[in-house]
């Protein structure tokens, strides 16, 4: 990673406290999001990737809190702002939300309020952050809808979410997120709920927005195919930790951590035919309330040793920006 970072996350720990238990959902995560680049966060569900995004936006549920670490937003105009120190719904945090940092949600079906018109919901964001009249906001909303490729925008702007198709709703959600030209876009599995063809269109849209506005994108996904399409940089998370990170080239061409390798081996590659071997990862993710003592991946790992059972491995730089957290990565056979 070389560019200019816009968000730095250092040793972030976010814990959840539902049902009188403590779940260390994010347990010491560090990474940088850089301007004009896409950072993909990969991992199975429950690995803490969505929580990380919510932590940046300070949109965590009630029974949870950031325990340690800091999240810094490097603003071009206001200097460094430590997001994790701001009041959750205070004025400073709110002035950044939707303006400098915007979020796209996983399910476009539920991310739009069913009782308001789509155009109104997009305008709401513009009016919140910019000193414009309603007419101007409406004009800009219309432009956004056109930009997002929504057909008949004059009609669509006054329709309710349920009158939109799934793909169109996600476009509307993206329009909402992009309405104030944010510096950072957090996209939490934006295409999981959509058809494959629509998926491709949405990604294309995000890609072009990134190029036009130099927006930094944090893209959360569990789909390795998406990663290879979209990512400039990659971090792989497992049970609340980053276990491998680096540029897309470094991680995808030369995966080191057994988990990353297993993830890559578990997806079929188009064109290889049906003879290819697809290996599912054995075992299941551990119960978050009953974690292994040492390396979190140890119970499912084929290369674990005694050290793995005892302690969580530290961060180790292989070359350039390629980082891995594994005691035994040297023992893992290369292809």
């Amino acid at each position, binding site marked *: 990673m070389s560019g200019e970072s816009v968000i730095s996350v250092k040793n972030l720990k976010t*814990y959840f*406290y*539902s*049902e*009188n*238990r*403590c779940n260390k959902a994010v347990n010491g995560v560090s990474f940088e999001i850089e301007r004009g680049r896409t950072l993909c966060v990969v991992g199975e569900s429950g690995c803490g990737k969505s929580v990380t995004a919510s932590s940046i936006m300070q949109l965590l549920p*009630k*029974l949870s*809190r950031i*325990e340690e670490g800091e999240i810094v937003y490097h603003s071009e105009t206001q200097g460094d702002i430590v997001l994790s120190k701001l009041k959750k719904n205070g004025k400073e945090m709110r002035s950044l939300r939707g303006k400098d940092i915007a979020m796209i949600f996983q399910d476009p079906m539920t991310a739009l309020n069913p009782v308001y018109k789509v155009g109104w919901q997009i305008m709401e964001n513009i009016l919140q952050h910019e000193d414009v009249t309603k007419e101007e906001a409406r004009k800009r909303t219309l432009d956004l809808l056109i930009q997002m490729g929504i057909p008949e925008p004059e009609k669509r702007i006054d329709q309710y979410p349920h009158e939109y198709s799934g793909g169109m709703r996600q476009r509307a959600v993206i329009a909402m997120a992009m309405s104030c030209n944010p510096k950072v876009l957090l996209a939490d599995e934006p295409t999981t709920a959509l058809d494959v063809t629509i998926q491709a269109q949405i990604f294309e849209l995000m890609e072009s927005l990134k190029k036009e506005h130099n927006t930094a994108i944090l893209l959360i996904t569990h789909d390795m195919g998406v990663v290879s399409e979209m990512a400039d940089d990659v971090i792989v998370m497992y049970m609340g930790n980053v276990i491998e990170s680096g540029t897309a080239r470094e991680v995808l061409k030369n995966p080191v951590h057994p988990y990353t390798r297993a993830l890559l081996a578990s997806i079929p590659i188009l064109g290889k035919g049906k003879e290819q071997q697809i290996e599912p990862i054995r075992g299941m993710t551990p119960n978050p*309330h*009953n974690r292994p003592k040492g390396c979190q991946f140890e119970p499912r790992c084929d290369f674990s040793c005694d050290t793995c059972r005892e302690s969580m491995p530290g961060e180790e730089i292989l070359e350039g920006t390629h980082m891995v957290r594994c005691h035994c990565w040297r023992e893992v056979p290369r292809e």
Partner: protein
Amino acid sequence: MTFGEKRFHKKLDKIRRLEEEGVLAKKKKGSRALSKFMSNKMAMLGLVIFTIIFLACIFAPLLTSYRPEVVDLTNLMKPPSKDHIFGTDKVGRDLFARVLYGGRVSILVAGGGALGGALIGVLVGSFAGYRGGWLDKITMRLSEVFMSFPQLILVLVMVTIMGQSTRNIIIIFVITGWSGIYRQARAAMLSIREEEYVQALHAFGLNDMLICFKHMLPNALSPIIVNITINIAAFILEEASLSFLGLGVPMEVATWGNILNASQDMYTLQNAWWIWLPVGVVISLFVMSINFVGDGVRDTTDSSIQG
């Protein structure tokens, strides 16, 4: 930091400490639902209050030597004392005995009405929901009629037709109370009917009645139990209201409502608190305990309500 925030962080700190010490991981043995219910303080308190009042009413003869209907003209409107711990009413009847024996009738009427209604509701509802067709259509319409009738109006109309007696009031409660449970049982059946294990049972060639009542009904039971408790609580209150209007169980029979009814005049209200306050509190406590238990059962079984 505000007081609320401090309290919030303190609570989280405690959970975190316990979690890190491994205390929380060791718990959770035995039945999950049961332990969740047991840990619900309000539900347990409700269960205790309910049991105490219920047992006290059942074993009334052991707790008091007075009879509820015996008039003692030498002891009129006496405040609570050693001899009469709840005092006496306008004709010298011991109020403690009246509350206990009255509880028997009130609980019998409300419980009988709720359970009878539940029996009919479950039988008709599950079968109608399972079979569908004309039976379903007719019973559904009928339940709609019963639901849109204000309960008290319906009860009073039936009192007009049938006349006042303890037995009639129970029958009236059964007739007016079945529709809620019917709808619940029916809805549960409709959703379970589509599940695969039921299709599988059909494929095995099991008979309809067996599938319906043995394999499907148990899965719909817990919301029905909650509804029965709600009905018991409602009927206790309704019996009291009916007696208050002088249209419930005949006045000669001691019930909670009838005891309260005797204290409607302003003089009693102002000068003889012991006639209306204890029985009013007992009714409220009893109904409250049922509500707590009902809430507890619902919270343990319904995973959607958490937090």
